[in-house]
């Protein structure tokens, strides 16, 4: 399928410089207020980031309830460790790092738990898709008015394929494409070298393309839902 993409959506966000913006300055003001004991700054900080963090969790686990739980866990960790934020990274990057760690820890623990009882689950032919069967994907967002049906279908297909990837590959794709982080920021979030980020990202893109193709070849009822 040939896709006529809008170049503006593919602009290289990663290589834009990231000087401190007003958003970053506001984040730091909130953090300083919290550190000074102003508890009223917490709701402002939470409402500022809850949608972003929830969306990140939802893309990772494809389940709204679980994503809400993970978002809450991430915020609790932020509450516990707000004093350890040293300002070397952007506060938003620090938040994403915590959130991604919470998601990856959950997915890895789930993988270990599932591997321990693998023989009691489904047949081996569906193992890959079963990996995320329990996380019912709920894409509740309707396509924006005026957007093409083709784009919405592509999003559905890509999101379905995203569930088939390994958590690490999913994470790097979500951070790069959904959150628009640079390679350097992704390396901060995941705690790996920039070269590793590039390598993992390329493999993730290849795996996503293969997953989309495999889903296109499968009959409709066998796709993960």
């Amino acid at each position, binding site marked *: 399928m*040939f896709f006529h993409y809008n170049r503006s959506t*593919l602009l290289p966000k990663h290589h834009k410089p990231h000087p401190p913006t007003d958003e970053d300055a506001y984040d730091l003001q909130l953090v300083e207020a919290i550190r000074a004991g102003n*508890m009223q700054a917490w709701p402002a900080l939470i*409402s500022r980031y809850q949608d972003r963090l*929830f969306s990140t969790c939802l893309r990772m686990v494809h389940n709204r309830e679980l994503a*809400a739980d993970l978002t809450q866990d991430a915020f609790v960790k932020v509450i516990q460790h707000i004093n350890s934020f040293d300002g070397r990274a952007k506060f938003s990057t620090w938040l994403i790092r915590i959130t991604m760690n919470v998601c990856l820890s959950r997915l890895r623990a789930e993988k270990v738990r599932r591997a321990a009882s693998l023989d009691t689950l489904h047949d081996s032919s569906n193992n890959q898709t079963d990996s995320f069967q329990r996380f019912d994907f709920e894409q509740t*967002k309707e396509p924006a008015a005026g957007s093409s049906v083709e784009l919405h279908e592509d999003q559905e297909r890509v999101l379905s394929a995203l569930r088939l990837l390994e958590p690490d590959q999913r994470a790097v794709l979500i951070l790069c494409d959904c959150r628009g982080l640079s390679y350097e920021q992704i390396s901060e979030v995941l705690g790996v070298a920039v070269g590793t980020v590039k390598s993992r990202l*390329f493999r993730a893109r290849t795996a996503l393309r293969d997953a989309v193709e495999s889903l296109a070849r499968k009959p409709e009822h066998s796709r993960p839902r």
Partner: protein
Amino acid sequence: MPPRPSSDPTPPPLNEEHMLEWIEGRLSRIEESNRAAAARPGVADRVRQMQANCRALRALGDERAPAELMERVLAALERETLLGLTRGEEVSDHPPISFPAHTVTKSGSGRLERMAPGLALAAGLLLLVGGAVYWGSLLIRPAPRTDRTLAENAAPADVRIAEATPPEPTEVVPTPEQASSEPVATALAAAPAPLTDDRILQLAREGRLLIHVRAGDTRRLAQLESDTTRTWRLSGDVPPEIASVLQPAPLKPLDPLHNQPVIAGESGPSRRLDWEPDLPMFEFQRIRETYLIDFPDTQRSLASIRAALADRLRAEVEFEELPEPLPLPRPEADALLWWTLPPSTWTQRVTAPVIIESR
């Protein structure tokens, strides 16, 4: 540096970074065309598919978080705040509630049980030795020197009498030198030791300090009372319960007839006399004024009080210890202007009664 198209039928494969540049749209259209032309067959199609996936992901907007998420996080924040976690305190894996652990101190109690007979024996020996020492000291205590002298000069039978008979009290007639020096010595022995500044401040904290001022000139008393430039304040506003405590009990008049009941009629020659006898001066009548002074709990302010009272009133200032603490009032709000000073300068203030009497 993007590879240039070449005439080589098998161009070298693009590395991951070049592919990412291509997929993520960081190349111009011309560079993209050149790279597609240089790539092996099929690569351009795969890149287009990846570009489509990339664009689909980027077009995804943020999902709205559940409405209750904020409440849940704030509830968690409240719990964490109560635990003190927002101050960066370490979190234990265990719940904060501690349960009494059932520990068996068998080894300790067993050791005590084994040592009990030894300890009892040691205690008994100690009692025996202590008793022997005590009684021995009583038996071998030497007799008074006078008795021994009498016994030495007396017969053996008289010695027993002399030892058994208590000595007669002998009236000692003091010599003139002794007579003149004894009252002074007695007075020195009876006079309490002068209070140190630390002791004075301690008494002030306990409400047991009385400052007794015998003034030679009380004309500047009002000036001292209205002086607000000092760190201490002298106030004549003394609660009646304090003043009544500080007033000495009136002395009984020396005239014994004064207290005798008068049996007389209300009129006539035998009526009761309506004049009072000339009573001697009571001690409390010498008290001129009672004041309260509040001052910083420092030796420096104590020295300032002592110097100012002695200088302004030409007085002798004595600090006396009261047997019981007085219910002294707390410092007033206008006396707490030190609140406006930096905390490093804050000191505790104490209050003490001051009796100023003229000499």
